[in-house]
């Protein structure tokens, strides 16, 4: 049997999870929270291991949550199952530099 691919949701507040395996477009991913499988989602992109995947549809400029903390904001609308990284999220610190 092939081991199911999984991602960790680190806090109940989070709208992203951290992938524990590299995934391909269309693959099913089990979301783990506190060692329990809480839901299953489908990857919309090929994504590297340890990168973030969206657990919800996130509107442009909404906060991205990881560890229960805001770690940036969406620079465009992000759909459930999409890769969340530097191409679609920004830092909100040090933005007054520009």
């Amino acid at each position, binding site marked *: 049997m092939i081991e199911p691919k999984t991602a960790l949701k680190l806090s109940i507040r989070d709208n992203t999870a951290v992938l*524990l395996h590299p995934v391909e477009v269309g693959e099913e991913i089990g979301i783990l929270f506190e060692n329990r499988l809480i839901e299953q989602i489908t990857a919309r992109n090929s994504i590297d291991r*340890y990168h973030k995947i969206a657990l919800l549809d996130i509107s442009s400029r909404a906060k991205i949550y990881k560890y229960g903390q805001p770690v940036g904001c969406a620079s465009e609308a992000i759909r459930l199952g999409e890769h969340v990284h530097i191409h679609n999220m920004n830092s909100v610190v*040090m933005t007054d530099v520009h």
Partner: protein
Amino acid sequence: MYIEAYPRPDGTFGIRNKILVLSTCGCANETAARIAARAEGAVCIPNPKGCGQIGLGREIAKRCLTGFALNPNVYGIILVGLGCETLPPAPLYDHIATLTKKPLEMITIQEEGGTLRAIEKGVRLAQNMSLDMSRQSREKTDISHLLFATNCGGSDATSGIAANPALGACSDLLVAAGGVVMIGETTELIGAEHLLARRAKTPEVAKRVLLIVQTLERRLAELGIDIRGVNPSPGNIKGGLSTLEEKSVGGITKGGTTPITEVTPYGVRPVQKGLIIMDTPGYDIESVTGMVAGGAQLCAFTTGRGTPTGNPLVPVLKITGNAETWHCMEDDTDIDVSAIVRGEMSIAQGGKLIFDQVIAVCNGQYTKAELHGYTESAVYRNYEIWCDCI
């Protein structure tokens, strides 16, 4: 909780016994290195400057050289200088002598009559010191004498999930036992400073936490520098970290959950017990060096992508939460907590695993960086603005 350590005349305890051959300026580096190579237990810290330094740069250098000499892992010190530098060995010798009664000697190359005479005198002094040092044995002492530095380098997404929180659990155990834990890397507190300020023991400490971060942000802004160009680094981004605040929120967990009791400038020894923030730059070698100058006897270093970093005076204990890094860089890494990522180990279990290794290293067990004999050291120079230092 007890460790076996070497008592020093100033009341501190070393977990290693080293003779520090300290070059006071770049012109004396080769001479100092040759002296250290000829005496068992001696280690050389070279100095990239020591001359041609002015203002705050000179002050930081003097503070750190003094701090190295006072570090509890140092049994005795041999200062090696040229004689005409702006940070001359004689006043530094006098300054250190007012602060500690450790064995302390000085060689000035121009006064000894050149390289060969300076090396001969230095080797004799170092060997005599080494003989005295070899007669000293470890004594049982309380773990509360430990000043425990933490640092992270080559972070990836596993750092914030496994290695940093597990180290945090170890930090909590050390603080509960009466020890001192230091976190630093002010660049990587940006975006998480509010979380730390909320945990400050007093309103003054909370103000200092916010001040070091805001000062750094303001100075970078004044210089027109976009910190996001270097932080998160290309390696951090490849490892799944997208923003500086994501790295910061994952990074601060290595200090654990106890109140912040003090914020101390770069290279300055804290006076409080508990969890301390030292204002250090994000560059690992400079950050660890500042904490060593501030009196840390041991550094726990979390890494996602792996690093060989050591230090001349303190063991650097490497911890990773990345299973691939453990397999590919086991020669450089001491502890694997990747089972946390797989859900097979709790963060508390990871913390206990690190704590037990910390005790073993305090009692003399080598780290991988010590096995390699690696001795990276770099005093922060304030021309690139990464921390405040005042």
